[in-house]
């Protein structure tokens, strides 16, 4: 048994526990360095993880994948975690208690995501999922002086538990039909069985519901606006990108590897859900007045776009998902970094309070605009390239209608994104005081903006990685 394959995960655990212990040992006033410590640790792990490309091995009898696909998603998660922890320092400090634990929980959530993206077997998958989710329950309810935070936590917990219940039920049915929980073996068993049995129909729908909850696909999306709004903003950011991306990784592995024989059925299912998700996400985002809520709906819509890559059910589609997922990390965290620093300064998340932000802090305004437009898929920002990858993977499979819906709605989404830009650029600020942005957050802002622009203009580097990831899944 080669445990070196698990280096990344082990390192992450050690980091988390190390920080936890250090946090307990040092006095309260000195704990504010812990955030940076976590960031540096995660960054090192991220750096190390590049060495794991091309291994394409499994550990524990096919139960745990260490392939390029999982590495890619782990890197995605690590990038998200690095950015979030770097950006969150001011916000967390303002939140008050348990400074160190916040970062520890974040790392644990990241660990859960990593396990999820590597899982080659249902039990591992389930535990990864739950580690991630339970960490998020805690993080969501972390803001002790804000009752909304607890409400979001309880909502997330109850709904999350229901959804994992139904996911489990689905998993159990698949296990019952195939007698195995290993994904690759499931495929073999199902291939022997041939036609689709009722249990598999129900099982698949339950799995769709379970994963659909995590990626917030309509009609399983309803928790996300409330939770996104109520959760502390760094958590929202991490939740929006990390949990979604990891769930997509697991979903892709389960459906593409385990159920390729039923792809006709689940593709149809996903196509319908994707269309609904895109439409409803974008439409409801329009009347929002709270920026976190607006971003929540927009992130629902984003999930819809990413689902198109799943529908393709081939390497091109996975490449699209991987590519889009990564740039979505930058766009979303960029946007939420603006939001968290803005609210750390002003205490507000209302869009109308962003009036004149362009003059109070040009950087915040510029980053928010760029990130939002990237989500809308406006060239030359990365979102455009991402959408191109996604939509080009399904257009020749007869899903032109979905492509048109996707593109139309993404252009319509510009309406509410630009409404924010309008407030920031056109209106005069009510309060002229400048916005304080700590160096770490500034770095995050610059990184996200530069990467978003750079990947839009020159997507080649990321597309190489995404290709590796996609191809490793189908080797």
């Amino acid at each position, binding site marked *: 048994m080669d445990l070196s394959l698990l280096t990344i995960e082990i390192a992450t655990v050690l980091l988390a526990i190390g920080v936890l212990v250090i946090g307990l040992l040092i006095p309260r006033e000195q704990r504010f360095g812990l955030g940076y410590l976590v960031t540096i640790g995660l960054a090192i792990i991220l750096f190390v993880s590049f060495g794991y490309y091309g291994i394409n091995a499994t550990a524990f009898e096919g139960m745990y994948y260490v392939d390029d696909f999982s590495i890619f998603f782990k890197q995605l998660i690590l990038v998200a975690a690095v950015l979030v922890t770097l950006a969150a320092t001011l916000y967390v400090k303002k939140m008050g208690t348990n400074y160190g634990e916040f970062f520890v929980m974040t790392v644990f959530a990241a660990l859960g995501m990593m396990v999820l993206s590597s899982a080659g077997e249902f039990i591992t998958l389930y535990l990864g999922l739950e580690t991630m989710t*339970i960490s998020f329950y805690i993080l969501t309810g972390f803001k002790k002086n804000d009752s909304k935070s607890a409400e979001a936590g309880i909502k997330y917990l109850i709904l999350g538990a229901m959804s994992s219940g139904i996911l489990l039920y689905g998993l159990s049915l698949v296990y019952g039909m195939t007698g195995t929980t290993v994904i690759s073996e499931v495929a073999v068993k199902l291939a022997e069985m041939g036609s689709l049995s009722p249990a598999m129909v129900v099982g698949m729908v339950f799995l769709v519901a379970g994963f659909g909850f995590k990626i917030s696909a309509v009609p399983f999306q309803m928790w996300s606006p409330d939770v996104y709004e109520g959760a502390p903003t760094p958590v929202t950011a991490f939740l929006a990108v990390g949990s979604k991306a990891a769930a997509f990784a697991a979903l892709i592995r389960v459906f593409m590897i385990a159920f390729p024989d039923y792809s006709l059925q689940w593709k149809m299912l996903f196509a319908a859900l994707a269309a609904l998700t895109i439409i409803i996400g974008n439409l409801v985002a329009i009347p929002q007045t709270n920026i976190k809520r607006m971003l929540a709906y927009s992130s629902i819509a984003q999930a819809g776009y990413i689902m198109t890559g799943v529908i393709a059910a081939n390497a091109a589609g996975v490449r699209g998902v991987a590519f889009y997922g990564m740039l979505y990390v930058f766009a979303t965290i960029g946007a939420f970094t603006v939001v968290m620093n803005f609210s750390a300064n002003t205490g507000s998340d209302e869009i109308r309070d962003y009036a004149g932000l362009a003059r109070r802090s040009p950087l915040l305004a510029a980053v928010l605009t760029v990130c939002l437009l990237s989500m809308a898929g406006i060239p030359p920002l990365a979102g455009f390239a991402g959408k191109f990858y996604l939509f080009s993977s399904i257009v020749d499979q007869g899903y032109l209608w979905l492509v048109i819906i996707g593109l139309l709605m993404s252009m319509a989404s510009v309406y509410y994104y630009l409404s924010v830009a309008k407030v920031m650029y056109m209106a005069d600020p009510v309060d002229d005081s400048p916005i304080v942005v700590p160096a770490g957050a500034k770095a995050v802002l610059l990184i996200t903006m530069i990467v978003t622009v750079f990947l839009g203009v020159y997507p080649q580097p990321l597309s190489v990685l995404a290709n590796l990831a996609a191809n490793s899944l189908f080797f």
Partner: protein
Amino acid sequence: MNFMFWLIAIITLGSALMMVMNKNIFHSALFMVVTFLGVAAVYLMLYADFMAAVQVLVYAGAITIFIVFGIMLTQRGNMKETNLFSNHAALAGIVSLALVVINAVMVVSTNWPKTGAEPPQETVGSIAELMLTKYVVPFEVAAILLLVALIGAVIIAKEVKKTS
């Protein structure tokens, strides 16, 4: 065997239903314990002795105590009318019933790949072996998960000093 099954089934489901229907949250908790025990009995029928033991220890023991503590912390005095239905109970009923039907139809119409072999009499050994070899990753993850839950529960339940 048949009789035993039906008895256990009725007890389990009946107490589950009672748990749901009861308007006194404390009584509900008691019915829940009965249900858990019923499930433990079902495990025994399925030759899962270790599972049954875990069920009794964890569920009927630990989790029930958790829940009772929860109830005690959040309810003051009179326990009557503490566990009411909400306005949309009918809708919830319809959805649940639909799922019952779906499940039943699905179970009946599916050709399950049963082996027909006799089950092993002893499970603890194999479970232990599986846990420590093949399933060591989930095992470790579960450990971390419990740690997370521990820390988290402490952080969240801890009272904050009202500043300002």
